[in-house]
């Protein structure tokens, strides 16, 4: 369990610093199991901050969403830092962005949370439908404790955990300035079971699977906008000349978009699963991202978002990289 009082105090101290613009964390949402990003501009804003297993959002996206509008006469650029509450995966996003020079380390203050896994909103909403009032979820060992309509339910973690959390190798922040509580120990190992079982299928079966998924896509690009790593100034899909991917929504363009989105995250995706969570059409996007993550690990012995000093995967090479496919 995260000590919320310590969290709030830390946020208060951080936001009170002169060199901090605001701190982003979590607060209760407007209904049911919703938790929503919260922005503290002053110490009292921190009072509503929480951390529970419902805090799924990857807040690393917010420093990348900062709008840099043209300065007016006499106006100076606001270079103050942004404070962020980060879990293990979120901190990896920040590391990766720093590695790519999208951010400088000193641009952010990271309040680290040792994370024991978060709940998949889809699973919990299916289990307890129609919750209009805000519901609290607590942890108790290997169970989640959920109080709904006066009754307390104890439910095993495995039943509600996000799939990505079940095999998370980095529950503790990879970098942070202040850690709330103690690091958690983990022996979890990513086994890529889902990926392997899909890999084993025939080409026809694989296409049949993905065709159905890509056909659903409505190309809202929520996957891109929710992703902390998708921070290009102009996304290639918004480009008009050359227009690589047409605007019309059909299987061909949808496939091109989904493949390119996945490829652009090769060696960069840190597996927070925000794309899939944001996707309104329930396309299993992490299955694409994880596949590349697995390949990259096997082929190049590389994992993104661990070391900010390392060079990005596709911007470097080893002379002896495998080339068995080359004629």
């Amino acid at each position, binding site marked *: 369990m995260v000590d919320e009082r310590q969290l709030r105090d830390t946020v208060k101290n951080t936001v009170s610093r002169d060199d901090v613009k605001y701190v982003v964390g979590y607060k209760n*949402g*407007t*209904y*049911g199991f*919703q*938790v*929503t*990003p*919260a*922005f503290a501009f002053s110490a009292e804003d921190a009072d509503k901050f929480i951390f529970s297993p419902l805090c799924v*959002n990857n807040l690393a*996206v*917010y420093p990348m*969403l900062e*709008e840099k*509008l043209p300065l007016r006469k006499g106006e100076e650029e606001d270079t103050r830092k942004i404070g962020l509450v980060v879990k293990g995966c979120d901190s990896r996003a920040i590391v990766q962005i720093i590695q790519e020079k999208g951010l400088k380390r000193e641009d952010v203050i990271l309040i680290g949370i040792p994370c024991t896994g978060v709940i998949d909103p889809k699973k919990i909403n299916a289990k307890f*439908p*129609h*919750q*209009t009032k805000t519901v609290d979820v607590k942890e108790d060992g290997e169970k989640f404790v959920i109080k709904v309509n006066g009754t307390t339910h104890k439910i095993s973690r495995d039943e509600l955990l996000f799939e990505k959390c079940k095999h998370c190798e980095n529950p503790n922040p990879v970098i942070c300035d202040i850690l709330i509580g103690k690091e958690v120990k983990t022996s979890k190992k990513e086994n890529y079971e889902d990926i392997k079982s899909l890999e084993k299928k025939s080409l026809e079966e694989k296409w049949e699977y993905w065709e*159905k*998924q890509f056909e*659903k896509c*409505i190309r*809202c*690009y*929520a996957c*891109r*906008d*929710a992703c902390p790593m998708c921070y290009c100034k102009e996304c290639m899909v*918004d480009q008009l000349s050359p227009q690589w991917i*047409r*605007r*019309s*929504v*059909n299987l061909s363009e949808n496939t091109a978009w989904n493949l390119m989105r996945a490829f652009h995250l090769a060696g960069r995706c840190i597996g927070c699963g*925000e794309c899939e*969570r*944001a996707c*309104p*059409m*329930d396309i299993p996007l992490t299955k694409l991202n994880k596949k590349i993550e697995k390949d990259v690990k096997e082929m190049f012995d590389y994992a993104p978002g661990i070391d900010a000093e390392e060079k990005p995967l596709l911007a470097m090479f080893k002379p002896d990289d495998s080339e068995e496919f080359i004629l």
Partner: protein
Amino acid sequence: MDRFVLSKEKTPKFITEIIAKYNVFAPVENEGITLFKQIKNPSEINLEFSNSKVPPKALLFKQTETLFKFTPGVKGKIDPMDTNGGKTVVFGIRPCDAKSFAILDHVFKGDYEDPYYLTKRENTILVGLGCTHPDVNCFCTSFDDGGPVSAEYVDVLLTDIGDKYFVEVKSDKGKHLTKTMNKLLIPATEKDGKKKNEVEKKAVDIITRHTKTDGIVDKLDKIFDNPFWKNIAIKCLGCGTCTYLCPTCHCFDIQDETTMSEGARIRVWDTCMNPEYTLQASGYNPRPERMNRVRNRVYHKYNYYPKNYDIIACVGCGRCIDNCPVNIDIIDVVTEAGEVKV
């Protein structure tokens, strides 16, 4: 309005008869989500849904629509499209989604009639399904008209009253559809009517989330420059899911697509949440910040639209709330906007 009942046993027959004469679109379970798709057999339908993921507006205002074909280049020729899509029935549409068509009509009619939407609209009969189990974020009762089991905007409304459906035939289109079905449709008794009212009341009571829409138009006029909007918008990711899945959002982009020898001008849904939406060729953007864009979405629905057409462009389906990845909740936004001190 004519009232009948239709036994559940005979419902497949009822649907089969419609399929024989019309293109029928109905809610279908598709890879984990419910969508309106064309069906050939009543067994494909899934009526146990609360709201389809994509609103049925997509059937009349298609996400990708060809406006006309042309020969590309500077010696161009135009090849017009046939806008008639054939006689269609949308089966199982929710009263809220049906209301959205009444709202969209205002935009697509007017000085310049949109033939693509209007021809489809004219040729489409809406067979609604009363919403007996509204979802957590449904708030259709917050508006002056409509409601979970309202027949106001459909041609025929079916309401599940236990072992049968209560059938209300609302319009001429509805009469035309049902007139040959007298073997299936039995005139409703007073008891059936009572039962329907009970079901309706129950459905209305399930809806516990409300927003205050009284005086919202005037109120929004007063708080345009209020910092409130910045606070609402700061967590917005600009993903646009809210607009794509909104049954009343009607914005679109027009693009030319070509091969070497053929081309077409198409229109596709667009979203005002994307900064490119208003970006001018000169580089100037009148809505440069997320605040501008989020505010525009709310104002478009709750201020601009009522000013122009005297109806709020929101039906309370709750899709934008359900699907927002950061929990921007229009119920709360509107309620809080009403409470902002000026």
